[in-house]
């Protein structure tokens, strides 16, 4: 099926093919007779060998041979010699079949099955493997079989490492060997207690080794992924850390009781409008964790009992792990000024998905001021659109050092945990940076630029909590821009990376004299992806209009969002809006002028907790209809996304999907909606 040249069929070819086909069919028919009648005579078994030699993919023949072997082994007159002869036959048939097709699943499995009967020696199997692996060093069947033999015959990891090393020295372009090496090394890292020591010694050697592969031929991918793994091993601290939180340490939170829609109610802008009588505490970790609950996180405040707090992971489906966790503190309606203390991880229980325990307890505190509003006697009225007014917004940009407000950094938890034990990490990174700068000075290659960008980012991320700035951002952004030109096939990949670095790089500057900002403008920045959420937890109103966002993955972390504009972006499906389902405060949403409905392939259908995935307690009752005249089958995405929203205002014009019919479905799904595309609803 693969790699055969296209030829016009000639009559003599067709005749020959037909003759061969008839012969094979006769063989097959005869074989079926033996198989279905359970005939295991010598001739019958020989016939199956002939069949498998021509067609090792004829799986039923392998099954038949296993039945024949079992038949012989159960005969009363069998003895060790006859058993050996029977099993030897099987091994011979497998070898013949593999010669015909050394990728035959049936053949390799049959050999494993024979081996399980206790025959053959490790030397024998390794000899066979050597033959096949020399013929094709990338044959994954052989590698898998090798791993099976090594394990069942208890070959040491060191011996197998040596074999992989030999294969690599024969030919650096051997991804399979590098892969095997990474498997063996991780197993060794895990086994040794005090894994850091071992890594400290082994990783520099592995870096030297991989350089030979990458620098010999930078365009060969075999070493790229191994190097990325080495980098990951160098920078990843096993134990998870709290990266940021909202409210930030030392901040003041002003809660204003009621929501009003005339402008004056938005001042002061530090106010958090809460119409639910509560506000969230958001914990943002540097990797997904589980086990966050009122035992492992204690919240001390005068007006709430810690045990009553329920911590929720912000993740898709029913996963009990997440990077972001949130709990809601109920606020009394009376005048209140109180201090809240949050202690994270003082008792054990928080654990990362990789299995590492949260071991650096941290604490942050903030003040809460509750100011109940005078209620208007009339109902809340929406006199005008909520406009994203200029003066409300903090402008994103490059300001001089003096006017920088480190409001972002207030959120960042200072982790004083990094000790001198981590010096080897910095040294390793510095050395790699030097090596790749050298490579790039000799040859302008994609892997050089990409790796250097990753190294510089890793270096900054490791030093960030102390250095308080990202030293290499400009260079990293330039590298990604270069890559977009050097490797246009993967343009969007580099663009996404570029967007995240851009977001992490800049600081907010004040455009008014407000201490605690709540609004952020990030429009017209060519952002293709959102990121840096650990810095953005404070944002209540976000303008992301006129960018190139086709995903808002991660936005669920911004729990304070009440007003969001995604106008003029590249969102292509309703399911892409799923992160917004977790934003309980969201009241105003603008998704106008996107591309929802343009294409029939939905790329976020499975990353969201879609009812098409059978997670336990799948949220959609499949027999439901929105109303008697709106069938679920045609509108399940809209129903799934919007039914839990609490929006007052929605803009959706400019999307292919947003015809009158669809808009009327939306109105039925969201009865509380007050305004759709600028039109007041009753």
């Amino acid at each position, binding site marked *: 099926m693969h790699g055969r040249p296209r030829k016009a069929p000639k009559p003599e070819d067709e005749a020959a093919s037909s003759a061969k086909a*008839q012969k094979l069919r006769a063989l097959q028919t005869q074989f079926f007779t033996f198989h279905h009648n359970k005939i295991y005579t010598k001739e019958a078994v020989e016939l199956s060998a002939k069949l498998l030699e021509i*067609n090792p993919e004829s799986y039923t023949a392998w099954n038949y041979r296993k039945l024949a072997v079992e038949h012989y082994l159960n005969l009363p007159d069998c003895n060790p010699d006859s058993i050996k002869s029977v099993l030897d036959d099987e091994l011979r048939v497998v070898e013949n079949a593999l010669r015909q097709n050394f990728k035959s*699943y049936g053949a390799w499995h049959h050999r494993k099955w024979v081996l399980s009967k206790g025959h053959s020696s490790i030397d024998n199997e390794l000899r066979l493997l050597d033959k096949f692996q020399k013929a094709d060093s990338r044959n*994954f069947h052989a590698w*898998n079989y090798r791993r099976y033999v090594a394990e069942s015959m208890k070959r040491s990891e060191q011996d197998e490492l040596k074999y992989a090393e030999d294969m690599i020295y024969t030919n650096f372009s051997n*991804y399979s060997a590098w892969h095997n090496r990474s498997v063996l090394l991780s197993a060794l890292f895990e086994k040794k207690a005090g894994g850091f020591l071992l890594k400290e010694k082994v990783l520099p050697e592995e870096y030297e080794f991989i350089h030979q592969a990458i620098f010999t031929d930078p365009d060969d991918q075999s070493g790229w992924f191994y190097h*990325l793994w080495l980098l990951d091993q160098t920078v990843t601290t096993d134990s998870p850390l709290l990266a940021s939180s909202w409210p930030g340490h030392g901040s003041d939170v002003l809660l204003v009781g009621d929501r009003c829609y005339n402008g004056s109610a938005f001042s002061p802008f530090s106010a958090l409008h809460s119409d639910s009588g509560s506000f969230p505490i958001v914990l943002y970790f540097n990797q997904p964790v589980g086990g966050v609950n009122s035992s492992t996180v204690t919240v001390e405040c005068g007006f709430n009992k810690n045990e009553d707090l329920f911590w929720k992971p912000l993740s898709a489906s029913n996963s009990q792990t997440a990077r972001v966790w949130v709990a809601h503190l109920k606020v009394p309606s009376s005048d209140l000024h109180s201090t809240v203390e949050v202690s994270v991880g003082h008792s054990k229980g928080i654990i990362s998905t990789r299995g590492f325990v949260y071991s650096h307890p941290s604490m942050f505190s903030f003040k809460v001021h509750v100011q109940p509003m005078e209620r208007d006697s009339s109902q809340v009225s929406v006199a005008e659109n909520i406009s994203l007014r200029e003066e409300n917004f903090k402008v994103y940009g490059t300001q001089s050092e003096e006017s920088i407000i480190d409001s972002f950094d207030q959120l960042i938890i200072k982790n004083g945990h990094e000790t001198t034990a981590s010096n080897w990490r910095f040294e390793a990174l510095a050395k790699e940076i030097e090596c790749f700068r050298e490579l790039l000075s000799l040859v302008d290659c994609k892997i050089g630029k990409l790796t250097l960008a990753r190294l510089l980012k890793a270096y900054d991320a490791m030093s960030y909590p102390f250095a308080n700035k990202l030293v290499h951002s400009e260079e990293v952004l330039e590298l990604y821009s270069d890559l977009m030109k050097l490797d246009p096939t993967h343009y969007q990949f580099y663009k996404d990376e570029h967007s995240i670095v851009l977001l992490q790089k800049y600081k907010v500057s004040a455009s008014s004299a407000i201490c605690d900002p709540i609004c952020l403008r990030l429009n017209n920045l060519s952002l293709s992806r959102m990121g840096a959420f650990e810095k953005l937890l404070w944002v209540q109103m976000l303008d992301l209009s006129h960018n190139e966002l086709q995903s808002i993955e991660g936005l669920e972390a911004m729990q304070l969002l009440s007003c969001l504009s995604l106008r003029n972006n590249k969102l292509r499906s309703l399911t892409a809006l799923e992160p917004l389902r977790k934003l309980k405060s969201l009241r105003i949403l603008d998704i106008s002028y996107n591309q929802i409905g343009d294409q029939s392939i939905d790329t976020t259908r499975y990353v969201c907790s879609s009812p*098409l995935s*059978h997670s336990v307690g799948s949220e959609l009752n499949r027999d439901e209809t929105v109303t008697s005249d709106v069938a679920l089958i045609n509108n*399940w995405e809209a129903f799934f996304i919007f039914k839990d929203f609490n929006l007052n205002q929605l803009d959706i014009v400019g999307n292919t999907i947003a015809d009158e019919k669809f808009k009327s479905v939306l109105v039925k799904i969201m009865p509380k909606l007050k305004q759709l595309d600028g039109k007041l609803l009753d």
Partner: protein
Amino acid sequence: MAELAVDKHVKYILAVEKNKDSFESVVMDHLRMNGAYWGLTALDLLGKLDSVNVDEVISWILKCQHESGGFSGNIGHDPHILYTLSAVQVLALFNKLDVLDIDKVATYITGLQNEDGSFSGDMWGEVDTRFSYIAICCLSILCCLGKINVEKAVSYILSCKNLDGGFGCTPGGESHAGQIFCCVGALALTGSLHYVDKDLLGWWLCERQVKSGGLNGRPEKLPDVCYSWWVLSSLIMIDRVHWIDKEKLVKFILDCQDVENGGISDRPDDAVDVYHTYFGVAGLSLLNYPGLKAIDPAYALPVDVVNRIFFSG
């Protein structure tokens, strides 16, 4: 740019179905059930499923079912999980799942789950993550996924996750686009995609696109049209498909057509077969090629077939 020669491909597929006498056909005899799935799904995507005789197909499928509930690749062969999925998928295409004794099929599949959560292909015990995907996809179509131990099935699949973000056929097995499709698909169907490092895997997958615009299955291998499915559907399920150049891939697939005789091959100017014809058409569907039905990346069935299974009133 070339165009998709729809009529030629339809003719080719129908001809392959009828031709049982060539050597190629006899050698593939044992996987005719897979061939039926490839050919018929391709016809459905091309809008021509009604060109075949439904009753004939169904009667042949049912003849391939064994006492155990499993289906064989063709009449006379032994049952195997591979052909059980294809049988169920073809019946789903024709909206004829009701001819099945669902409990019987489910029993066959649940019987193949091992202690560690993995699945064997048949009674002889070969274990491979392909079979995990098959079990999950099959029972999902039959709306009885809860009959297997889903949690253990997922944890076995995760034990096959590699350090490059990809997945192999067994723990420690090298990442391969086909296995990645199976594992990502199985995780998608069980709502478990949050276990996948989408950025890491996304980069590995997008680097399958080589200069010619085609996709290979793992580093330093040749591009092949079938990877337009395995790699592409995986990228779509984890929402990273924008990391490849879609236009270049469309061009590569179209260049693999035999525009005179119909059919698509693994590489330009190679011999065509129904396997690559299906994956080429399915790949084009995922790339929003005009005139094709949309295909679901996890079930590998047309979206309207999947919706019908889940939302039929």
